[in-house]
């Protein structure tokens, strides 16, 4: 029964998102666009954190690099092509993810967290301390890319309503894509890796390859988000790949609920809306945000998505993923906290 309500709620939400630009004014449409971009970003991170158990604190590297790529690729005076700049940005992010992944995936647990952070920070300082792209102040994209299909311009990226629908379409596509991937054999493998990588290897999975592919997919999707974000306002600065950015998207994922498709959506929307709300209430709005985060951590071990009634098993979501977040705590201890992952030697 509750499942049915959920479906209805979902349909209503989709309908609202579809008609929203017709009701809202420019600011709110752009605000929701930004939330949708963060949904893409958070969902990409969720693939790593929530499903594969790879907690990255450097995910903004891919978000930011894609932004820098469009910015550097866009000519001064006229617009770049949408498809070429998109392909270049997403491809660049994927390539970077592949390179970084090859290195960082050798570590695990907290060491992985720190290794991802290290590479992202290197990139941060590269853009912050050198004049490659405007240094600490960042650079502009003077003209937004232009989307043409055989000479026809179906979507004007400078038009905020058009842009909204473009982002909405991308967000929906990403979530659907993740949903399909997670049901596939590949999806089962990465979830297995999160729970017990050692055993995955011993039953015949070369886990490194799967983790790397997963890391690249997540990096590419983060790149997509970064591209959209850079294009939305046309400014790119080092903060885009700083650890604050990585941290805040990680918070969205955890707050919303790891390992569920709905989690990052809820996390991105609620965190951004809460901040917006609190900001209008008081100068010390961060205090309120902090308190809400603390309360969620204390009382909602599965994040805000945990408030949704659990879906009947075997229906959509991985039965094991979300619900196991707290149960797998003990197995996480082994990799993140106490015994190093090298207990492999001891069986």
């Amino acid at each position, binding site marked *: 029964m509750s499942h049915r309500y959920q479906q209805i709620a979902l349909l209503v939400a989709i309908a609202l998102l579809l008609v929203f630009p017709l009701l809202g004014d420019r600011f709110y449409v752009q605000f929701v666009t930004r939330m949708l971009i963060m949904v893409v970003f958070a969902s990409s991170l969720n693939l790593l954190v929530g499903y594969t158990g790879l907690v990255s604190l450097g995910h903004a590297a891919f978000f930011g690099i894609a932004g820098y790529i469009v910015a550097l690729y866009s000519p001064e005076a006229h617009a770049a092509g949408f498809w070429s700049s998109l392909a270049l940005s997403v491809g660049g992010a994927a390539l970077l993810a592949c390179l970084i992944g090859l290195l960082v995936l050798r*570590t695990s647990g907290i060491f992985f967290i720190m290794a991802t952070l*290290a590479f992202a920070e290197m990139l941060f300082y590269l853009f912050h301390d050198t004049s490659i792209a405007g240094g600490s102040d960042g650079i502009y994209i003077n003209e937004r890319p232009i989307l043409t299909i055989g000479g026809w311009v179906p979507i004007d990226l400078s038009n905020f309503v058009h842009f909204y629908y473009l982002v909405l379409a991308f967000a929906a596509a990403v979530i659907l894509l993740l949903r399909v991937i997670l049901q596939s054999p590949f999806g089962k493998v990465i979830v297995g890796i999160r729970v017990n990588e050692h055993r995955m290897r011993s039953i015949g999975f070369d886990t490194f390859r799967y983790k790397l592919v997963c890391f690249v997919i997540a990096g590419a999707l983060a790149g997509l988000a970064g591209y959209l974000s850079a294009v939305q306002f046309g400014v790119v600065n080092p903060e885009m790949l700083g650890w604050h950015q990585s941290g805040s998207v990680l918070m969205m994922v955890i707050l919303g609920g790891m390992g569920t498709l709905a989690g990052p959506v809820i996390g991105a929307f609620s965190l951004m809306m809460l901040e917006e709300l609190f900001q209008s209430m008081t100068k010390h709005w961060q205090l309120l945000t902090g308190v809400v985060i603390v309360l969620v951590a204390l009382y909602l071990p599965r994040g805000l998505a945990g408030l949704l009634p659990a879906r009947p098993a075997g229906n959509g979501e991985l039965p094991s993923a979300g619900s196991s977040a*707290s149960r797998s705590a003990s197995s996480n201890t082994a990799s993140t906290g106490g015994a190093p992952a090298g207990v492999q030697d001891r069986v």
Partner: protein
Amino acid sequence: MDPTIFLIQLLNGVQYGLLLFLVASGLTLIFGIMGVINLAHGSFYMVGAYLAWSLTQALGSFWLALAAGIVLSVVLGMLLEWLFIRHLYRRDHLQQVLLTYGLILVFSELRSILWGDDVHGVAVPAMLSGSIALTETLAYPVYRFWLSAICVLLAGLMYYLIQHTRLGMMIRAGATNREMTQSLGIDIGLLYRFVFAFGVALAAFAGMIAAPVSSVFPGMGNQVLILCFVVVVIGGLGSVKGALAAALLIGLIDTFGKVVEFELAGFQVLPELAGMSVFVMMAIVLLWRPEGLFSRRLR
């Protein structure tokens, strides 16, 4: 670089490394040994510095402020453990990340409400305010030597406590298997409350004694947080020795990274990119030893 200057730079590096160790040592305890990822560690450092400033003004003596500050921070630590942290030991580590991230926001706002957003300075206590001349132009403040001595002392103390006392063993045991530790008759709840409080006090203490040399400003906690994690991770989880070695390493890298330049493919690499040096270092260490320099397995 002429030898005298080189030696002085060495001293600078070591001294900075020791200070880093002091800040990171509380984190080693809480994170490396208790297994709690405490992002709010930097906030305690900041709270310590602000306590030193406000208490010195209120009590008129740095030393009194230090004593009072330690007591207050222990109390704060116990309170936080009791209110929040104890609910999270069994949970996913990421819940701890979330909670302590929330605490960062709370503390920074509370600081803003209580103490404002100004930058402050704390005077070096009179008895340590002298300087020792190293070269004709350069002198070294006595206070910095004193700081280093305290850090070395604390490092030794912690090493002994954790590696060689039963208390240390119990704490380490509790991190991997709470139930079993309890079943051996150890009140892990109480033990952890004290350990957490001790970790908080260490961070705050570091903030207090660093205040006279580092000045007191709002963002100081966040600045130091990442560096602390780097120290703990490079050193290997839960290893005091490792944290010390890593802190010294970073101190030296940072120091020489700023002043030594060399050419690579026609580019002046350092110190142009000194900001990266610490992270490059961490990446190299982790790739070479994916579990830190002094991981438990190697001990």
